């Protein structure tokens, strides 16, 4: 019984991470930028869970750690959207190109 090799999971996580990175750097709507960052965090989670089963010493620690990561990601999404709301109230835009108030 040959299972899926570890490198297949790692390559999947790499592809998802690159998609998220590209989205975060090119999209102009700030909500989409936030959700691309969530995609990148998810790719890291896949790595954690994959190593927890197929790593050198399989143990449950990787899964516990990925639960912590998911918690952090949820908190980050909430705070990010709150900042976005407050910014939108002041500047009437969610376009990241126009968020340059601290630039000059």
């Amino acid at each position, binding site marked *: 019984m*040959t*299972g*899926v090799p*570890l*490198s*297949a*999971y*790692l*390559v*999947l996580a790499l*592809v*998802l991470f*690159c*998609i998220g*990175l*590209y*989205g975060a750097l*090119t*999209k*102009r*709507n700030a*909500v*989409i930028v936030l*959700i*691309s960052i*969530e*995609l990148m965090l*998810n790719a890291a*989670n*896949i790595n954690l*869970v*994959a190593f*927890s*089963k*197929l*790593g*050198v010493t*399989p*143990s*449950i*620690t990787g*899964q*516990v750690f*990925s*639960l*912590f990561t998911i*918690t*952090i990601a*949820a*908190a*980050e999404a*909430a*705070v990010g*959207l*709150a*900042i*976005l*709301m407050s910014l939108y*109230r002041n500047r009437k835009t*969610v376009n990241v190109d126009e968020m340059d108030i601290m630039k000059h």
Partner: protein
Amino acid sequence: MTLSGELIAFFGLALVAILGGVLLITLTKVVHMVIALVFTFLSIAGIYLLLSAEFVAVVQILIYSGAITIVMLFGIMLTKHQESDEPAKGGWGKITLLLAIAGFAVAVYLGIYNLDIPVQPATLHEENTKQIGIELFSKYVIPFEVMSVLLLVALVGAIVLAKKDDEEGDQS
């Protein structure tokens, strides 16, 4: 390598996950992008099931495809946006970025493509939730409590940030 059921499931789920990501990049309407990403989150939950992490898979479905997607949709609905997120001024910037990301991908791929760790027998699938609970409350109890404080801070911070501050003038 024989075509086992696990392999077929992995390829199907990976295909849906990557397809969702590609749709996130290519679709033009903002709401459609978020909906496309729900498919990615769900198939990542399926990947977790393949890796015998049932509890993490359920948490993934609840938190990501439930909570975070809904919060993001609220964020889209509550802000006035252009219906479609028109791409930025393409050109050299985007091409350079693509090249940089491709270089990063190739560099990491060279490191992982022949990574071969002999598979050890693991008992992660037996009473998965119970194992996580025991580990969480015996070995990782302090990080767990710190995490609860962090969630409280994030909750208060989000409320304070998003609160309407129109009566700021008359309070001293």
